[in-house]
């Protein structure tokens, strides 16, 4: 027992008197059981949204980008807003699995699998927008460094948009192998329990023949650690580079040095909010309250509160620097944001992102499931508005007042956005029925140190 010691002051991370076998059973249950009515209802709605989105994408590609609400002043609007929003959401997964692994935070084990799944699914949504916005998506391979057919005209490595290509694709693929490597032992567990031949075949295929040898585990742990070490700067670099899309330009309101840390904090903020939204539902539907406990929810709320406060500081810093710079274009850009025709978007952003997370200072509120759920949705709305404010309000009144204009989305803009939300939930719902949603092998390693029954035994021993 000595090696499993954990300070008694720490609340248990696994409750409900679990044994190793019970963990297996609990994690396998949603996969081995059949879906209930609610799952089918939500799945159908998501699928319809997804299909609607596909329709809008087909319309856009076949007719042209003119089907969107863009004009010659506002050449970037919902597409890039949605892109940055989805990439931001995709930051929590790798943060939880990589950064919290390096910090040896055991509470990540209950939530990392779903957070990583969410990361991958949302980065897929993000990747759709630049490809569609190309107008001719069949030429998307032009972003790879290959010479054109006439000679050696290459992609431009000075361009932040190309940096994005490398950052997002590295992030997506490295997150994917990180996720999959962690899944191997859990898929193997499902495989070895499967009774239906088809199920057995599929899980044998995806578990890559994982057998759980001592040497395999030794390598597995080393690979996880090194991948975490690689993914930590990676996750910080991705949103840094996304912010460079704006920060390296000469548009007032975009050309600010605070963007990288401000974007990264915002990304973690929105990512955690989305993890919170999904897990609050999932723990209920899949009966995982013993693994995603109130303590997990509270800790995520604290991360939301801290990153929300960092984002709030960044907003205020931006305002201060705009005034302090003495550049009148910069000053006007921010005055226009707060008091111009898009004031409602600015104040929606301020309310949702700066004020709402401050409620989490109260223990009663941050341990309330309903309140956490509401705030998590509010934060995601706020973070969408943040990107909208940064992008559209900086563009719509540019240097030349004669070209000042407004942006309003068409049904195609809205349709594609809703389509990606549908696609995201289709993927996540399918995931929740076919994948082990808790990293059960990892949870088993902390059962003896953080399981309530084992902690109880130790406490009795001390007394």
């Amino acid at each position: 027992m000595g090696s499993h010691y954990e300070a008694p002051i720490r609340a248990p991370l696994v409750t409900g008197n679990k044994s190793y076998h019970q963990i297996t059973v609990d994690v396998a249950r949603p996969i081995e059981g059949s879906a209930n009515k609610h799952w089918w209802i939500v799945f159908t709605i998501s699928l319809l949204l997804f299909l609607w989105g596909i329709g809008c994408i087909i319309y856009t590609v076949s007719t042209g980008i003119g089907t969107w609400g863009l004009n010659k002043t506002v050449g970037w609007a919902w597409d890039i807003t949605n892109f940055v929003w989805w990439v931001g959401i995709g930051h929590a997964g790798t943060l939880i699995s990589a950064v919290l692994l390096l910090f040896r935070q055991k509470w990540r084990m209950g939530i990392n699998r779903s957070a990583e799944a969410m990361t991958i699914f949302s980065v897929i949504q993000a990747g759709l927008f630049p490809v569609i916005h190309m107008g001719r998506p069949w030429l998307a391979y032009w972003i790879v460094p290959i010479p054109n057919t006439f000679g050696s005209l290459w992609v431009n490595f000075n361009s932040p948009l190309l940096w994005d290509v490398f950052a997002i694709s590295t992030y997506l693929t490295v997150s994917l192998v990180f996720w999959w490597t962690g899944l191997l032992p859990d898929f193997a567990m499902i495989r070895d329990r499967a009774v239906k031949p088809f199920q057995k075949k599929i899980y044998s295929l995806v578990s890559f023949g994982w057998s759980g040898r001592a040497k395999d585990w030794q390598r597995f742990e080393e690979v996880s650690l090194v991948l975490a070490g690689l993914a930590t700067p990676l996750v910080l670099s991705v949103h840094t580079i996304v912010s460079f899309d704006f920060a390296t330009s000469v548009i007032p309101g975009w050309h600010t040095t605070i963007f990288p840390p401000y974007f990264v904090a915002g990304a973690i903020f929105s990512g955690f909010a989305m993890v919170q939204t999904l897990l609050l539902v999932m723990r209920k539907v899949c009966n995982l309250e013993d693994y995603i406990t109130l303590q997990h929810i509270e800790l995520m709320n604290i991360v939301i509160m801290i990153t929300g406060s960092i984002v709030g500081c960044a907003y205020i810093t931006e305002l201060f620097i705009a005034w302090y710079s003495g550049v009148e274009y910069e000053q006007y850009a921010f005055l226009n944001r707060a008091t111009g025709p898009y004031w409602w978007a600015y104040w929606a952003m301020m309310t949702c992102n700066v004020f709402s997370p401050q409620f989490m200072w109260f223990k009663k509120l941050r341990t309330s499931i309903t309140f956490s759920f509401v705030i998590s949705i509010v934060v995601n709305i706020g973070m969408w508005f943040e990107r909208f404010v940064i992008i559209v309000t900086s563009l719509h009144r540019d240097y030349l007042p004669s070209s000042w204009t407004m942006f309003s989305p068409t049904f195609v803009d809205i349709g594609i956005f809703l389509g990606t939300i549908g696609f995201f939930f289709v993927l996540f719902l399918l995931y929740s029925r076919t994948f082990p949603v808790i990293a059960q092998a990892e949870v088993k390693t902390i059962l003896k140190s953080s399981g309530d029954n084992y902690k109880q035994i130790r406490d009795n021993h001390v007394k």
Partner: protein
Amino acid sequence: MLNKHVHAIYDDDDKLLSAVKHLRSSGVSIKDVFTPFPVHGLDHALDLKPTRIAIAAFIYGCIGLTTAILMINYIMIVDWPQNIGGKPSFSFMENLPAFVPVIFELTVFFAGHLMVITFYVRSSLWPFKKAENPIPETTDDKFLIQITSFKDQKKLMSIIKQTDYHNIDIIEHQPVVAESNKLVNESSQVSVGFVFHSRKYSNGSSNLRIQFTKGRGSQYAKNTGIRIFRKYWSSSKNSVSSKHPEHEVINKKLENIKSKIVSGKEKFKNGVISFEQLHNYVLDN
């Protein structure tokens, strides 16, 4: 020659760890240990060499870094230098700051992916790979020590029995052949014997099969429909030991099969039935 494996099964990681230490100090050589999750201290208890995969990752990262630098230098400086935004690309060093993001991403890309590929290759993990854990419970809550080379089975058993074990399995890999296990040169010669199916059911029992061998090349096996625990099988008598609760019924069935084998072989010799049809005759009840 019998090739016996001993599987000592435990239901707890701490019991496993002390058992591994005990077995090793008693001079038992452990082939492998299968566990459902990483057991801390197991690699030290087994004296596993530390893995060098992190060093490999560092080298892969260096390869990625070099590749990125060479590629960008060739594309942006050597092959087609351009004046972008008043910043002409005539030298790599002066343009380096703009190249840092891609260089960093490619370093991570190479290190991450090549390390994972190395891991998959070294631990032989790939799609369509067959799992090798001897019992399926080792991915759930059982811990298994596999011992393949030992001289004295009794001594080994007594050592294992000193540990807090859950179960011990003895696996016989070579077919337990009924008769004429001698080397046969004539390809027309047929030998028939009893073997156990290599897979076990979750309760530990396995299917008893009949293996038909012609010459040295063709061989196939068919289930007898009898499913028993291996410990009840007597390979010298080719029958079930009297400890089995239903040994009379099963042995009667086996007697029937054995007589069919003898007459079936005779029929094959006389050319009445082919090798492929033999199993129909033997197992036709």
